[in-house]
């Protein structure tokens, strides 16, 4: 389903309030869900008479330069071009810097139900306010069952079947000074085609459920710094039950590791973006939180070009080759 937004929804956003947007025409179309693109468009090329330059579902913005250009066309042609723009199936028009088009254009907006808005703000201010909101609104998102913790500013997504100990692991991480982002339901958004931002379901922010204890509000227990609204997801920790098969897999991974195939690490795709994944078997005597923290440290070091295993193994190889005592 293609997402859409109405101009009324847009006007209701707190981030729009300071722009002082006024509806000056086409009010009938305010509640139609017609904005379908996260990008806005400046209408210059369309006003210059070039056809096919109005992209579907994008809000159109007319700033000082557009109005200056219209002046050079003479009033008759300027009006004709504006009317053509209004009737081209666009979701709405915003005029900036206090400009407003001629009454005849506003009447056309009323007839066509195309909202015409105006603001005293600069075009750049308008775009700065509107673009992040649209990007967020239209970003693809999913919900995953898991726990998300901000560990050294790295979003660490802990996955595993119910009852395996994800929340307990998160609690231990909080004890170590890390922050809870989401327990049980993780809302993940992809933004700018590269990043994954994780946050809690709005009804669950800063709550954690521990079997045998109950629901706890981590802010009451640990203070406001124990939770965080959102974090960029950097790695996945998959918790699995310790079984013969899991042990087998662990051995295979270790062998591959020590053969120097370190770059062939496992990944899992979320919204089309691959995320590095560590698989950890949960067993008595294994402190999962400590292992998670160490995995994050290791990935931070790797990001800085520091490779624990690489330098260790190189040294062993040199000794084996008789180059070093």
């Amino acid at each position, binding site marked *: 389903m293609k997402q859409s937004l109405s101009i009324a929804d847009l006007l209701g956003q707190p981030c729009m309030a300071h722009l002082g947007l006024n509806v000056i025409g086409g009010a009938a179309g305010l509640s139609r869900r017609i904005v379908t693109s996260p990008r806005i468009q400046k209408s210059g090329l369309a006003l210059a008479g070039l056809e096919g330059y109005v992209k579907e579902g994008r809000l159109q913005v007319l700033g000082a330069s557009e109005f200056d250009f219209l002046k050079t066309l003479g009033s008759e042609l300027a009006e004709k071009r504006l009317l053509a723009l209004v009737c081209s199936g666009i979701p709405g028009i915003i005029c900036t810097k206090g400009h407003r088009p001629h009454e005849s254009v506003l009447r056309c907006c009323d007839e066509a139900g195309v909202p015409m808005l105006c603001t005293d703000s600069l075009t750049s201010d308008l775009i700065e306010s509107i673009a992040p909101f649209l990007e967020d609104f239209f970003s693809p998102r999913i919900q995953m*069952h898991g726990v998300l913790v901000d560990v050294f500013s790295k979003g660490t997504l802990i996955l595993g079947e*119910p009852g395996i100990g994800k929340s307990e692991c998160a609690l231990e991480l909080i004890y170590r000074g890390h922050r809870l982002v989401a327990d*049980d*339901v993780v809302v993940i958004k992809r933004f700018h085609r590269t990043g994954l931002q994780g946050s809690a379901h709005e009804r669950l922010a800063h709550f954690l459920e521990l079997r045998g204890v109950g629901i706890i509000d981590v802010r009451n227990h640990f203070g406001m710094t124990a939770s965080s609204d959102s974090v960029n997801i950097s790695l996945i920790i998959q918790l699995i039950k310790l079984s013969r098969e899991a042990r087998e897999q662990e051995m295979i991974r270790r062998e591959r590791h020590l053969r120097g195939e370190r770059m062939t690490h496992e990944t899992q795709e979320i919204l089309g973006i691959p995320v590095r994944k560590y698989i950890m078997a949960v067993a008595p005597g294994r402190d999962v939180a400590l292992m998670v923290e160490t995995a994050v440290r290791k990935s931070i070091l790797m990001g800085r070009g520091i490779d624990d295993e690489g330098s260790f193994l190189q040294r062993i190889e040199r000794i084996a080759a008789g180059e070093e005592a």
Partner: protein
Amino acid sequence: MKTIEVHISNRLGLHARAAAKLVHTASEYESDIFLSLNQEEVNAKSILGLLTLAATKGTTLGLRVDGVDEDSASRAIVSLFEDKFGEGE
């Protein structure tokens, strides 16, 4: 995999105690069990997710059960909903 619809008919809806009962029942089965409402799907073996649905009386939820015991698991879940979570109203 089985997907069916379940209907909430008890007066209080899928409130905390009903959700706890549902988790209890779901956790007795090996299968993965999910409930969904308006494209939001949550794990039925975990209580917080169920509570986010805030599903009231009259709501229809999607039930998805996937695993070796999916038949008996879905039967148990469906009868729990039909039984109004044992609340009698």
